[in-house]
């Protein structure tokens, strides 16, 4: 109020302006006051910029929602030995994080530590950001030396490590044991057994496989579950062949995989209208026993457990895309991790925090929180019992990264989403769907 009154008094003093002349007089003090306002306005952007990021007061960490639990848990542990240091964290779903952080990266005020996706194939992927010179090299950190060579393309660009990620999550079938038991079926280990189990479940009035294909990322999971057997079991160098132009999606085992995807729908093993069903509805169907299983990533096991009254009823088995259980290949993708912005390169706190995350016990903690298998295990490592059926396959080297982690640009994955939705709605056939993906693959990144 005082300020307001002061303004009024000031206005009264200048009330003698000669309006007839069309000009107004200002005292030097008034002019300086106005000039001060302009200077303050000019100073505002740097001030805001300082608040919003950079290495100002605290270390700023921005992640995706999937990372919230492990980051907050581990940050709490980290701060025990550094009580005086300030940290800020914020988390958002992938698309929001991607939009905001990419804009900040472009504007030069990126957070010190932020989410980075493994390999290539996404606008926030390690390769995309490292190529643009926006990530700090983490190669000298001790954990970087323990990355298995099979995962090298997910963590490294031109021989340097730019990504910290705790390990790989798996794609398989999350199933309701009680529903299986009621129908008198066991988890299948071959494609033919899978068809027989689905037939039996359907005959008992249960939806065999819940599919929430209205949520775009869900569309890809069945393809990814089938492609390792249809493609990589025969040609482990498929990604290199694609990059060199020696093959295409249309002329590869991808056609068999999408053919099987279509077969499951044609036989009525999905819920009605999968394109109108969301991930949340898919989850509820399995959790309530309306559906027997859903092909999903292990990272969402927690969500499925929260949706059911009896979490112990839910388990997971490797989705059998082939006919020989001893030669079953599965997808195991490196989970979204963290990178250090080049802006924070001179701030030792950022690299120090990543080094802390790289300790074996913390890798285990992070992996456990997101139902992943740590990229390196030792005697103290424990894996959720639900994932145990997958371990022999992973240890035998029959796990391949999620397919998009080697795609050359960010357009192939959305093209895959759209192609599967078109396939499910009958708008296209397998060749047409794979043609869309080939077109997207060949577009310049």
């Amino acid at each position: 109020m005082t300020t307001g009154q002061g303004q009024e008094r000031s206005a009264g003093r200048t009330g003698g302006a000669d309006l007839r002349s069309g000009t107004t007089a200002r005292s030097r003090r008034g002019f300086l006051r106005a000039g001060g306002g302009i200077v303050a306005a000019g100073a505002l952007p740097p001030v805001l910029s300082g608040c919003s990021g950079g290495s100002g007061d605290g270390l700023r960490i921005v992640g995706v929602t999937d990372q919230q639990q492990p980051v907050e848990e581990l940050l709490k542990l980290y701060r025990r030995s550094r009580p005086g240091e300030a940290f800020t964290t914020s988390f958002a779903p992938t698309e929001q994080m991607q939009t905001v952080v990419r804009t900040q990266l472009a504007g030069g005020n990126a957070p010190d530590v932020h989410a980075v996706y493994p390999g290539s194939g996404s606008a926030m992927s390690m390769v995309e950001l490292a190529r643009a010179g926006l990530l700090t090299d983490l190669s000298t950190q001790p954990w970087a030396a323990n990355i298995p060579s099979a995962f090298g393309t997910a963590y490294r660009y031109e021989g340097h490590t730019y990504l910290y990620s705790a390990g790989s999550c798996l794609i398989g079938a999350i199933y309701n044991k009680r529903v299986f038991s009621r129908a008198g079926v066991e988890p299948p280990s071959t494609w033919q057994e899978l068809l027989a189990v689905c037939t039996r479940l359907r005959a008992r009035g249960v939806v065999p496989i819940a599919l929430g294909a209205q949520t775009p990322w869900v569309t890809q999971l069945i393809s990814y579950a089938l492609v390792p057997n249809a493609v990589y079991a025969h040609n482990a160098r498929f990604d290199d062949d694609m990059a060199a132009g020696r093959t295409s999606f249309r002329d590869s085992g991808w056609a068999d995989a999408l053919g099987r995807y279509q077969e499951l729908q044609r036989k009525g093993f999905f819920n009605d209208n999968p394109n109108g069903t969301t991930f949340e509805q898919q989850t509820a169907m399995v959790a309530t026993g309306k559906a027997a299983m859903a092909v999903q990533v292990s990272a969402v096991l927690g969500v499925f457990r929260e949706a059911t009254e009896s979490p112990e009823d839910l388990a997971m088995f490797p989705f059998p895309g082939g006919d020989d259980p001893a030669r079953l290949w599965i997808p195991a993708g490196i989970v979204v991790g963290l990178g250090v912005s080049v802006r924070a390169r001179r701030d030792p706190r950022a690299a120090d925090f990543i080094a802390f995350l790289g300790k074996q016990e913390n890798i285990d903690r992070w992996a456990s929180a997101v139902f992943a298998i740590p990229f390196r295990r030792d005697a103290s490592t424990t894996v959720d019992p639900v994932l145990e059926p997958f371990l022999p396959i992973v240890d035998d080297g029959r796990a391949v990264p999620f397919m998009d982690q080697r795609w050359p640009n960010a357009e192939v994955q959305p093209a895959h989403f759209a192609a599967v939705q078109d396939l499910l709605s009958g708008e296209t056939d397998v060749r047409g769907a794979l043609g869309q993906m080939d077109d997207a693959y060949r577009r310049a990144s």
Partner: protein
Amino acid sequence: MSRSLPQPEEIQPEEPRAGKTGPGRTGPTARPRKTPPTVRIQPPQTPRTRPGRDLTVPPWGFVVPALVVYALVVLYPSIAGVAYAFTDWSGIGDASFVGLANFRALLDDQRTLDSVVNTLLLTIAVVVVQNVVGLLLALGVDTGIRSKSLLRVVFFAPAVVSPVMVAFLWKYVYNPEPTAGLNGLLGAVGLGALRQDWLGDPSLALWSVAAMVVWQYAGYSMVIFLAGLQGVPPELHEAAKIDGAGTWQRFRYVTWPMLAPALTVNLMLSTIGGLKLFDQVYAATNGGPGTASETLSTALFKEAFVYGKFGYSTAVALVLALFVAVVSLVQLRFLRAREVTA
């Protein structure tokens, strides 16, 4: 700089005007005129300043701060956006000038061209249905019914809800389950044969989104039409009634022509809104299934933030902006020519 101060002046009170006490009032009751008092007005106080130290700012100078902010917040990004449309910028890293390559690519890009068709279809559907429904609602609540105030609020309420919230709400309405949402309602009233996969069927998804938009903004159109209806002079209706005009004839020849300004505003707003539609589409279908409900706005968002093709996306945005401007101007010119006033 010298300037003249107002001098004290003598102001004579006005002569009494004609009336009760005016000069026309003569006769024995007229009072003698008194000598008017002299009123002295003191010159306004001015701040004491030393000669030659004042800085004079012309009136337009006060606009400068606002112009500076406008230039920084609106003009600079807009012009920079136009510049990006001629580069291959990915949103991060360096950019190279590529001339008209983005615009040529746009013409060859079937995905973008499909989104143009979807945008036009969606706009036409929204403009037509939203305004028809809005007009009917306005006519309905402009009558003497007792609950008209409540109905106006109810019909307008969706317009103030966030479009994203509306999309999430309607995802439940459009639940494909036969017993849930709209399908459940259809089944309950014996229209089970009409149950659909509203958002999952490529032939329906775009129209389902259009219905959602119409539901949200029909009340907005209603309010504008209502303002137009209340501006129609009742005498015109009464005169038409005396001339024997029926209800339809009064609407056709009295109300409708007088609603032309409201119609212009409504058509303009709904056309611009339809051409720019983003939130509801993105939240409800994400442009799917496949690309069945992709609009220009969702397409350009994906180009920029999902595919990392910022330069190309800016070219699409520029074309969209020009398209909206041209359509709006043509529409405005056509509609203004048809307007009449009371």
